């Protein structure tokens, strides 16, 4: 546990972190039961502070809100699995980790050049997990760890966490659809020239893997659906590309 991150729990609960810090801290929370417990207990304190400033809204607001609710469709129970973050925050945040809607033209142009850079892509994510579970922990708790978060159009979350000191990066996928029979998710590193270099395979719709390759030089991380066993170069449009900037 990084002492530095740990001390952000109070600011996190009071929404007093910058967006980047919040993404990093939420990544840290997944690993740190101590911080999770502390955040859960402090979460109950913040609402009490509002007691001191309670102020009745004008009566007209009540009518307006009830009338609008009557016209508003409710989200189905399964649509929102995480109550932690209101979705609007995700959508309104352009500053980092945005999903880049890659035009096919640009992606294919990158592929032609990438063909020369074939890296063995046969390692499945399960194997990676068994051998490198310790690495994902170390990356997440590295003092210089930075995370970039993006959402796919389908609402799945992709987080890349990189420690330049360690020269390692971890890709976490959350809530993807099943890739389909005989298909896998494949990660790619986009290098300086815009080329896509294979960085590992993942069969899971929720899981994480250590990325292969020179992550410190990577400008982006892409994910595509590929035939089982993976491809030497992307054969489909990426479902997401996270820009590491």
């Amino acid at each position, binding site marked *: 546990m990084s002492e530095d991150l740990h001390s952000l729990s109070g600011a996190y609960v*009071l929404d007093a972190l910058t967006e980047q810090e919040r993404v990093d801290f939420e990544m840290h929370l997944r690993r740190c039961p101590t911080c999770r417990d502390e955040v859960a*207990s*402090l979460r*109950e304190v913040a609402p009490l502070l509002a*007691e001191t400033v309670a*102020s*009745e809204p004008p009566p007209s607001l009540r009518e307006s*809100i009830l009338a609008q609710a009557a016209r*508003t469709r*409710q989200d189905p129970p399964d649509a929102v699995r995480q109550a932690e973050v209101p979705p609007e925050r995700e959508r309104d945040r352009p500053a980092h980790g945005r999903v880049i809607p890659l035009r096919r033209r640009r992606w294919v142009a990158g592929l032609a050049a990438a063909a020369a850079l074939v890296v063995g892509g046969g390692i499945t994510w399960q194997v990676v997990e068994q051998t490198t579970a310790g690495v994902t922990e170390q990356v997440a708790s590295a003092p210089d760890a930075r995370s970039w978060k993006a959402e796919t159009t389908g609402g799945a979350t992709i987080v890349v966490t990189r420690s330049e000191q360690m020269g390692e990066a971890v890709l976490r996928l959350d809530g993807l659809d099943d890739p389909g029979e005989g298909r896998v998710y494949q990660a790619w590193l986009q290098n300086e020239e815009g080329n896509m270099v294979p960085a590992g395979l993942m069969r899971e719709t929720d899981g994480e893997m250590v990325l292969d390759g020179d992550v410190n030089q990577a400008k982006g991380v892409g994910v595509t659906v590929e035939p089982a066993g993976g491809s030497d170069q992307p054969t489909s449009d990426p479902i997401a590309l996270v820009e590491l900037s």
Partner: protein
Amino acid sequence: MGSVTPFPGKDEGGGATGASSSETTLPAATESDRLAATLRDVAKGDDAAFARVYDATSARVHGLVLRVLRNPAQAEEVTQEVYLEVWRRASSFDAAKGSPYAWLMTLAHRRAVDRVRSSQSATARDETWEARTRDIHYDTTAERATERMEAHRVRTALHGLTDAQREAVSLAYLGGYTHREVAGLLDLPLGTAKTRIRDGLIRLRDQLGVTS
């Protein structure tokens, strides 16, 4: 920045009444349970249940949003957004993860903070901070404040914090500032600001006997 007014009403006799009000209790578990049950009805599309949630919580939600935004028109807009989100996403409330108040107020606070940060640059807010704190006594917030036993209890607990902790917690939560901005406003090293915020909250938690 020596005269930051942390919480309105801090000097309105909260200290003197502290001893007696400390015997009041937190919202009883049953109140929390009742709100959770009402939210479950809201999730099923029960608009009468939604009205009950509004009536039970709107003074706290609106008061918080108004305090962060300092603008009655914007506060009404954001309060409306908060309740429509409650209506839409009631099914995502999970009692296992925390109390219904924490869920609701977290949602309200985030919306208020998002609004204030997107509408004003930090620099502009820094420059107007002192002017705005001077206005607090004339602020409609104070006039229309809904006084509750619970508010006394919380003020008493706030008096148990050091001035430095209270300022930092107040600026972060009610001012909507990031801990970096708090450090700037109070002329503190960054590490000190976040530590004060955390220590202040932990102390409040322990004094108020909050359990999660």
